[in-house]
């Protein structure tokens, strides 16, 4: 199987993702080396924390080019939480933190990262239903009762808004429906944490493994 690299984004859930991926028999390595990433067969891009902090970390570690390389080469790529948000054009998060921070993402998917409107408890924490927009291998074999979707664990204050509807893979209701999973070619992103979503999360990671295996090098 093609080599799977988990980007060392120095985030708190890095070890959880590594453990979960190993648990479903993927063989990940953790790396922040631009060369290793550029030649990876597949990538998991985790992130927790602030958008600006993570965006400047990518820049500081010189990873922008390598990340674009794997993405444009069509290698299976899974962004998790902030790792998904960073795929987008820009985030309004910095506006809430004084306005002087980096607001631009990798621009692999056109769209914005927005803050949940006032009125709902923020962060959005806990298990919520992810309804796939259509049948897709990433969401295969999840005990979906009557196609209503499966529950995954969320913890975030910002959500993504893709410009193109075709990039929406799953939606979740938190006062209004927001995009909780995206897909563009072999590029995937999930707002929830599969590594903390029990059996459903492990299945999703295993499904990603299947996508990797089915992708020709």
């Amino acid at each position, binding site marked *: 199987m093609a080599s799977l690299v988990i980007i060392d984004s120095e985030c708190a859930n890095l*070890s959880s993702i590594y453990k979960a991926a190993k*648990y479903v028999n993927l063989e990940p390595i953790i790396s922040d080396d631009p060369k290793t990433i550029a030649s990876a067969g597949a990538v998991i891009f985790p992130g*927790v*924390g602030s958008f600006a902090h993570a965006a400047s970390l990518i820049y500081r570690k010189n990873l922008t080019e390598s990340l674009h390389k794997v993405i444009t080469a069509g290698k299976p790529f899974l962004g998790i939480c902030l790792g998904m948000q960073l795929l987008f054009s820009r985030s309004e998060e910095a506006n809430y933190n004084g306005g002087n921070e980096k607001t631009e993402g990798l621009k692999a998917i056109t769209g914005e990262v927005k803050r949940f409107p006032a009125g709902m*408890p923020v962060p959005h924490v*806990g298990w919520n239903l992810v309804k796939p927009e259509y049948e897709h291998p990433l969401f295969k074999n999840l*005990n979906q009762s009557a196609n209503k979707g499966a529950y995954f664990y969320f913890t975030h204050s910002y959500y993504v808004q893709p410009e193109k509807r075709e990039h929406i893979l799953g939606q979740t209701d938190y006062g209004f429906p927001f995009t909780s999973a995206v897909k563009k070619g072999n590029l995937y992103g999930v707002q929830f944490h599969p590594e*903390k979503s029990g059996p*459903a*999360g492990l299945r999703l990671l295993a499904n990603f493994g299947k996508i990797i295996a089915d992708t020709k090098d």
Partner: protein
Amino acid sequence: MLAKRIIPCLDVRDGRVVKGTRFINLRDAGDPVERADFYNREGADEIVFLDITASVEKRRAIIDVVEKTAEVVFIPLTVGGGIDSVDFMQELLNSGADKVSLNTAALKDPGLIQAGAERFGNQCIVVAIDARRKEQVDPEDKLSWEVYSHGGRTPTGRDVVKWAKEAETLGAGEILLTSMDADGTLDGYDTALLAAVTDAVSIPVIASGGAGTLEHLYEALTKGKAHAVLAASILHYGTYSIAEIKAYLSEKGLPVRPVKN
């Protein structure tokens, strides 16, 4: 819809679980890893470890517990008890915890909440509040609660609602609210306390203390407007299983994550 969470809490001393009688099907009912996995398989939405280790030297045992649990249990893990520095938070998070719960140390130095939230994000920081009802001089007086520290032994003079708001402002991502009056009674949560705090903050509140029946859990989540319930006795002594709790809540119309999800 966001599901209401059912969270078993395991008291851990020197790396061993100290409460519970129902675990006949476990090899070692005192092993926190086995117990956490048991609840994980039963459909728990998160696990909380409360470290009640008395000596500082034995504190490191909890790191080992978290590390081993995180190898097999893939739901959120929270650790509380004796956390008094950002470095210790870092160690716990590195070993696989998702959140840390601060109590006495945060009361002594509220800046610890902010320091933790800035370093790890708000979602990592739970502030645990032990609350006791203040006596009403006049029955017409508004109810109020006082914050206690040191495992509920020391009154702090702080008002619970004010402290919860302060914790939120400082960067807490969740409040774990225990009623000391109700704790261990099995007579039900203090829903007035819960409602007072859930009305005052916009972050999720986890209800703790007093659950004896399924109705109690329902009341905490409806009257008390809690986002989650922490349960110890009713789970450890086998009064109800998580599946029974979820079936009941679901029948009453509350959203829960199905046990077979």
